């Protein structure tokens, strides 16, 4: 008889392998980083050979690619979108401005630290990151998915109050719906 734990492990390995090779990225260009996404998807860099492909709506997507700076107005929508996505879901922060604000460090309308508001699994550095860097970022995400370390969504659920408090600090009109999906 197969041990329950072991069989769960095997299922996990297969599932993580499938997740690794099928990454559907939500088509949401939140910032100027969106300009390097078409080259990444098209002939020279061709991310589809790695299983990366666009998804039209949040319900179908696995990865939220935050392409660059987030203004407070966009952040509200991004949070809505992120919460509509189905588990397992991952967030990639794209560009310097998601890491520390980049050149917008003193702007009144862009957030500086993405990981205070959403759980980020992988950051891609650069302004603008080249398509190679984007592919490397996807590679890193695949790596941590395969190892089962990409647990951003779980982190978000566990520390929901902290995240919500941070979000509400800059978005007064954030809808206070319960996070239950």
């Amino acid at each position, binding site marked *: 008889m197969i041990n329950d734990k072991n069989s769960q492990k095997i299922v996990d390995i297969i599932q993580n392998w499938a997740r690794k090779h099928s990454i559907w990225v*939500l*088509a*949401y*260009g*939140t*910032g*100027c980083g*969106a*300009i*390097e996404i*078409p*080259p990444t998807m*098209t*002939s*020279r860099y061709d991310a589809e050979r790695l299983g990366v492909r*666009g998804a*039209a*709506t*949040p319900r179908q997507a696995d990865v939220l690619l935050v392409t660059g*700076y987030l*203004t407070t*107005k*966009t952040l509200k*929508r991004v949070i809505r*979108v992120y919460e509509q996505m189905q588990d397992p879901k991952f967030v990639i922060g794209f560009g310097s401005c998601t890491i520390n604000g980049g*050149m*917008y460090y*003193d*702007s*009144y*309308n*862009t957030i500086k630290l993405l990981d205070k508001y959403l759980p980020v699994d992988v950051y891609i550095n650069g*302004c*603008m990151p*080249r398509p190679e860097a984007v592919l490397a970022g996807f590679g890193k995400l695949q790596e941590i998915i395969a190892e089962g370390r990409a647990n951003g969504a779980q982190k978000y659920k566990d520390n929901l109050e902290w995240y919500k408090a941070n979000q509400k600090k800059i978005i007064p009109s954030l809808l206070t719906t319960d996070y239950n999906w």
Partner: protein
Amino acid sequence: MREKATTLYFGPQHPGITGNMMIRLKVEGDTIIKATTEVGYLHRAFEKLQEKRNWLQSFTMMCRFCVPETDPMEELYARAVEEIEGREVPERAKYIRVMVLELARLASFMLWYGGQNGSLGLYTMGQWSVGDRNYILDLFEELTGGRIYHMYIWPGGVRRDLPKGFEGRVLKTLDYLEKRLDDYDDLMFDNAIFKKRTQGVGIVDKATAVEHGVVGAVLRGCGIKSDIRIDDPYEVYDKLDFIVPTSDGADIWSRALVRRQEARQSIRIIRQVIDTMPGGSVYNKIPNPQKWKLPKGDAYVRAESVRGEVGLYVVSDGGTMPRRVHLRGAAYVHGITLLEDVLVGENIADVSAIMNSLGTCPPEIER
């Protein structure tokens, strides 16, 4: 019975939207009866930040105003600063500037080819043209070190001279692209369905164009010959020979025809520039940027980008930092009031195509 109007939110998360903005559509069946744009998703407060940077630091922000075509903004800033300060630019630098501008225009046209066809469901074109665009970006990378953000055309000239043999590589790329543009014609302009989808859609006629202050290819698409490169020539455009194409249809199809011609004219301009480029230095040195002060004054300069006229108003109060930098993009006019008016009466299926055709570029609107 009268059909009840539905509200359809087009964006901000929507594959059909160009960039990050939202249009609230009131639809009856498939027909739009009212469109309201909502922008501000990309407002980074550049103009505020530039007041807090010195003249050279705020230059680095210029290229980030609109990503599909970054060089006209740099060139505008450089030209405005030169106009306020009265700084001379070497002749060779002007030629190099024109070459870079036209290469950027060509790259932006490639992106437009992809966007316009992608919005109509012809994804093959986007794959081809965006893939081929990489060859132009390679040239930029060799010249400036960056694919998208070049920061190459700066006050006083250009940052460095052309590498050895660069002209030859440009010409080789142009030859290739010219061949590819013919392929695109076969796929796009010889396509009966493309014609059916675009003719008579998104009409901007002459009266509307004047009322809204429409610029660029949209204006030329309705039969008015207008191009800043000819009307208000800058750099060395007055020494170059090129034609300004116009078309009379005033719909998406005629705008596409105008852009198709313009891409070829860009190639022609680059060839001329390479043929007639003089020698000499490319850069008049600026003083220590920390202490660089400009005299009191202001300047309004304009350039022709792919989307149309881009203007930049720069005010100096005699200090080390700009008093005000205010950009007026073509999309500022096209993307809000014109789009709202044009969309009324159209089919929902055409919203994305119209946006692409009008050259809506949200980062330029919101800055």
